[in-house]
């Protein structure tokens, strides 16, 4: 813990060096002799797929993990970082991917947490608030110190995270996938602020797998693959495909580029929502009269900043959340009052929380594959499971969907995120659904599996399936969707054909700045 006042009390970090960092977990080497060197006054991108070891490396730097081998040097001096407290004292700040905020506390309380108070045991939140205001103005981070975290949007919460680190005098700031949850405009603001911090001589480590952002922002880029450092390169002169190849280790087929298909007058209306309203888990209104249609043979993209009603909408369609108003029709048939019927009538759902809602991690791959229809023939014989029929069907699915698993009886939890997602896709798509609701289908999934999942969605469209693709990744929506609906605060702000959708226009709609109901 460090004493007040907070502004730039830690000495400047001119260089940070990680030498030969190795970290083993049971069965995996997360980091294998990784070297990394970062200077003050640079933005250093750390690029790698999920599971490449980026987060582990940064958790070691922040004292959350201890390395099995290797050393950390700051300004040429070897240092031991055995806890986050050590890291903070040395001027290291971290913006975690999943924000480390306490929702029931105010902004000022979150920032003061863990620090000494100028009034001894008594909290001095007024002083903290004043200092927060000063920092906020300096960096253009508008936020009310007295607001509770749970009242803030995701973008505002990110600002609180950054303020928290600045308040502690962070000279080296690690940002773990900071753009994943914010609008394009907020990304611009964030980048401007990071450049300002670079100009002040701070060191910034920017973790991302979005190549465009890495190229736009960083001075140098270090690429990790399978726990090893592939190399560190000057960003200037590297193209997106160069970086993708370094990251994946082979030529990446740009699955997205050739997927655009001319909206060839899609088929009949498969799914129709009329004035749907619904409540959130906290019993506050989450959807306000949502109206949209998805036609057979089209992908309707639903863009929006997380928490604007996407999850509630998906669950309403899948029959997991009751509606308070409106009607849901499937191929013209009113199924509003009949949630359980919807699944049988041909709606499939790939939930956002695939580990929690989509699977039973302790079950085997095979058991997960038959979760939906294990009570039907041929998998069931009366009350008993027909093991051989299950095995046969599952081996077939594993092959068709290229699920990388040692076998059908492997516990699902030992598979990678991408392969778990393929298991869900296999289960849902093998039913040949008329309507598929896919919520964040590629979040946290590596490039290879992402391409495969996109291919599966495109094939389903070709076969006449109606797809509602909910994603916070605008690139994904722009690449796949025929039409794009933007959701903001539980309303559909607009529905645009993909030809008229640009990131800028969508960003404004997502932020609720403009509304153009078609």
């Amino acid at each position, binding site marked *: *813990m460090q004493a007040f006042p907070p502004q730039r009390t830690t000495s400047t970090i001119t260089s940070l060096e990680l030498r030969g960092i190795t970290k083993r977990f049971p069965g995996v080497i997360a980091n294998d002799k990784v070297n990394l060197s970062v200077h003050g006054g640079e933005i250093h991108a750390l690029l790698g797929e999920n599971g490449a070891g980026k987060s582990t490396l940064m*958790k070691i730097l*922040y004292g*959350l*993990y201890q390395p099995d081998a290797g050393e950390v040097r700051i300004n040429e001096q070897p240092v031991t970082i055995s*806890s*986050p*407290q050590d890291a*903070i004292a040395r001027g290291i700040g*971290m913006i*975690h991917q*999943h*924000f*480390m*905020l*306490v*929702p*029931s*506390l105010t902004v000022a*309380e*979150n920032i*003061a*947490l*863990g*620090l*000494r*108070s100028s009034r001894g*045991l*008594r*909290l001095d939140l007024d002083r903290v608030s004043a200092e927060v205001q000063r920092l906020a103005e300096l960096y253009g981070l508008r936020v009310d110190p007295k607001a509770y975290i749970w009242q803030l949007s995701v973008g505002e919460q990110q600002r609180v995270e950054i303020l*928290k680190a600045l308040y502690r005098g962070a000279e080296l700031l690690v940002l773990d996938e900071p753009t994943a949850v914010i609008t394009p405009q907020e990304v611009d603001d964030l980048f401007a602020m990071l450049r300002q911090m670079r100009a002040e001589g701070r060191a910034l480590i920017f973790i991302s797998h979005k190549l465009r952002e890495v190229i736009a922002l960083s001075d140098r880029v270090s690429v990790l693959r399978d726990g090893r450092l592939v190399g560190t390169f000057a960003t200037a002169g590297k193209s997106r495909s160069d970086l993708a190849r370094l990251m994946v280790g082979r030529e990446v087929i740009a699955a997205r580029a050739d997927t655009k298909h001319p909206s060839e007058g899609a088929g009949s209306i498969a799914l129709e929502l009329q004035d749907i309203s619904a409540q959130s888990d906290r019993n506050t209104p989450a959807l306000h009269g949502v109206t949209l249609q998805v036609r057979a043979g089209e992908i309707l993209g639903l863009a929006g900043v997380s928490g604007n009603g996407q999850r509630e909408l998906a669950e309403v369609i899948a029959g997991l959340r009751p509606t308070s108003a409106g009607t849901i029709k499937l191929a013209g048939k009113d199924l509003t009052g009949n949630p359980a019927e919807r699944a049988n009538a041909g709606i499939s759902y790939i939930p956002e929380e695939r580990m929690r809602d989509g699977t039973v991690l302790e079950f085997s791959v095979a058991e997960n594959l038959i979760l939906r229809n294990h009570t039907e023939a041929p998998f069931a014989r009366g009350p008993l499971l027909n093991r051989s029929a299950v095995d046969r069907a599952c081996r077939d699915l594993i092959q068709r969907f290229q699920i990388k698993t040692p076998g059908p009886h492997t516990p699902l939890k030992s598979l990678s995120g991408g392969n778990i997602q393929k298991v869900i896709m296999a289960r849902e798509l093998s039913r040949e659904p008329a309507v598929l609701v896919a919520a964040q289908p590629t979040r946290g999934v590596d490039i290879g599996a992402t391409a495969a999942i996109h291919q599966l969605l495109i094939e389903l469209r070709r076969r006449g399936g109606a797809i509602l693709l909910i994603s916070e990744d605008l690139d994904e929506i722009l690449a796949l969707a025929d039409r794009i609906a933007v959701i903001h605060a539980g309303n559909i702000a607009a529905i645009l054909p993909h030809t008229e959708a640009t990131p800028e226009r969508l960003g404004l709609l997502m932020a609720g700045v403009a509304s153009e109901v078609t």
Partner: protein
Amino acid sequence: MEQLFTLTTLTGILHSTIRLATPYLFASLGETISQRSGVLNLGVEGQMLMGAFAAFFVVVTTGSLLGGVVAAIFVGALLGLLMALVSVSFRAEQGISGIGMYLLGLGLSSLLFRLTLGSVQSVRGFAELALPGLSSIPVLGPALFKHSLLVYVAFALVPMVAYLLNRTTWGLNIRAVGDNPQAADTLGVPVIAIRYATVTVGGAMAAMGGASLSISAVNIFQENMTGGIGFIAVALVYFGGWRPVGVMLGILLFSLVSALQIWLQLVGIGIPSDLAVMLPYILTIIALALAPRRTGQPAALTRPFNRGMA
């Protein structure tokens, strides 16, 4: 004459309400601190029994009331540490470890009582302390300001615990650790140490609750003399919405019904006594069922902390 009778009765009922509330206040406020840091201590009942016995034993053998209080606090803190070891360090299922603590306290206090004292006897506990001036206010004075020292201490703890939780850096740490320990950890807040501290303090306060029975309210010790007070105390933390003042209000309501029930039996209104005794408990169940849903519940309650694991 009629008027005077009802006022005296009212004073009597209020007086017993305050007296009955005392052990709950100690136990529930301690439990509030513990739960706000994310640890459910279901072993309050056992810790109360051990506190009641320790205090009683020391007073019987030495005659020192201060010694009795110190003994209760010491034993309660020790049991709190044990609870923390099991729930925080070993990350045991907190509902189960609490039942273990209850059975340990119940069995051990009965065993030690039989081995040492053996027979029912009474001690000279804390005497009634009428606050000069205040206690001569008509009706309310004798009801509120003629109590033993521990009663005043118990009520004084309400604003103290509220201040601790809401206005101090310790309190901020406790609340943060109970809501999002991972976030607190990344800011260098010692999650484990804070949980140890709150559970230990909670244990000491529960034991004081027990002592307030054995060396203040009734001045005797009996096996299983708490008869469920510790469990009700845990329920009242939920009822009070994890806020000291709310918890106190819940306790006063519960104690008022208990006092009324005793009075009903004394005047012999034609209700079977078994039914009357059940009244406060039925009220607890109804109140808990009607209480607003879990608002204010620490998000990490009963969730053990493990650095690096989400």
